[in-house]
């Protein structure tokens, strides 16, 4: 896999890599894609209608109002909070 592709995929995944990390990732991905490419030799097509025929789906819940978690408890896991989630300025 070339560096441009890794750069593109990392951008999609919101990940930064240094030049050395990028090269290492490209090498790793090349050997991983080699394994993935084995599936190219089989001629087979996905049929949505057949999917999940043996997975039990319980259906959707009713849309009912319920108690939510207390704000204070939720904000405890935010590093930077002032009774709300704080983000860098997004509007000038």
């Amino acid at each position: 896999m070339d560096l441009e592709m890794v750069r593109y995929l990392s951008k999609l995944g919101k990940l930064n890599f240094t030049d050395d990390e990028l090269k290492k990732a490209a090498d790793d991905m090349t050997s991983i894609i080699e394994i993935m490419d084995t599936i190219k030799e089989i001629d087979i097509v996905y049929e949505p209608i057949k999917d999940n025929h043996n997975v039990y789906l319980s259906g959707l819940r009713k849309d009912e109002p319920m108690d939510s978690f207390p704000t204070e408890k939720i904000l405890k896991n935010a590093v930077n909070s002032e009774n709300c989630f704080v983000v860098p300025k997004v509007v000038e």
Partner: protein
Amino acid sequence: MDITSLKIRDMRTMLDKKEISAKELTDAYLARINDIDGKLESYITVTADVAHAAAEKAQKVIDSGEASALTGIPLAVKDNICTDGIKTTCASKMLEDFVPPYNATVMEKLNAQDIVMLGKTSMDEFAMGGSTQTSAFKKTKNPYDLGRVPGGSSGGSAAAVGASLCAAALGSDTGGSIRQPSSFCGVTGLKPTYGRVSRYGLVAFASSLDQIGSIAKDAHDCAVILNAVSGYDYHDGTSAKKDVPDFTAKIGQSISGMKIAVPKEFYAEGIDTDVREAVMKAAKWYESQGAVLVDCSMPSLKYAVAAYYLIASAEASSNLSRYDGIKYGHRSEKGDSYNDLICNSRSEGFGDEVKRRILLGNYALSSGYYDAYYGKAMALKQRIREEYDSIFNNCDIILTPTAPTVAYGVNENISDPAKMYQADICTVTVNIASLPAISTPCGYDKKGMPIGMSIIGKHWDEATIIQAADAYEKQFERVPAVI
């Protein structure tokens, strides 16, 4: 007698007869963790205070004569299962300080029986790996040889059970993460049918494949835990609205006449000779007991690792997009814009393997590659399910090795992700087909390392694989880990 080596049901008897108290049992495990876990590194967090409080409460329930199967039993929990008020790190710097505001449904169910939670066990970061060496905190060792890996991703749970640092443990299994470490650590691990156990509160890796299960000293103990944690859950739309049977019900019944499929591809090149011979020897034992061995084939097995990694990574790349460093999780100190803050937080918080899976998932899903990779993998998922259906038309259970090798050295394979992925060949199809499977020890190699065999069952038929595993365990002489 060392009480930490007892089975859960023996502890139950002793607790109920007042031959031992919940506190004594808890203290025995905590003392052993204190003595040994510095070397083994199976726990990320030991919750001694929580355990003592739980033991006190459990004792009151026992004294009132209303104990459940797991009341007062000291258990460990994989660190990707949310525990209210107790850190749940997923062995990642991303969640190093994350304290869930709620319990996973499995924890609610275990707490309803007044278990004693000893702590949270190490794992591969976000359950991505088969060695527990991608843990950001505790790179767990194998209790049979501290120079080897315990397997993964539930390596902490399996090692803790193998070293008697808990009576049993919860793990999670997306592509073999309960069964393979159980095989490496010489213990029994049960991956239930997808939908049997609620995933609510299990940190999501690949939602169509993830399933919580139990790791214990034997199949009977695994069944006791499965009895406690199974059932429909309002919070998980994929949990099944099915009655929960008693999973111990078939234990002790004759296995004569049971039809056991032996798919030849699972015994082919790439499987170590010691492993193949040990599993075949077990097959012959079943035959000697009146079971019927059925030769069969799974032609798509050679594509299974690719199909699994494409599907699992595609789902992981979506599931892990929630980690932005803002609501919870690691937040970078660098980044003046919203986008830079997210990129920096994720780049600092995730380890190398997690990043590789995100890249692979994005590749499989990206425009121009989707049909060739993700689409093809989903087609293979259907093909593999059909092949399982066909095998089960003519048999009751399937017998395979759990892993191609025994546990390897802590420095082997780790730098070669492609090689690590291929080692999952024996386990991934079970998750792809949503089936239940149990791994139990069936032998030891020349150096004394445990070898596991997997018994795969029909959907919802955990009771039969537990029956078959239990039958083998009753005559198999286990060599305990000495640490």
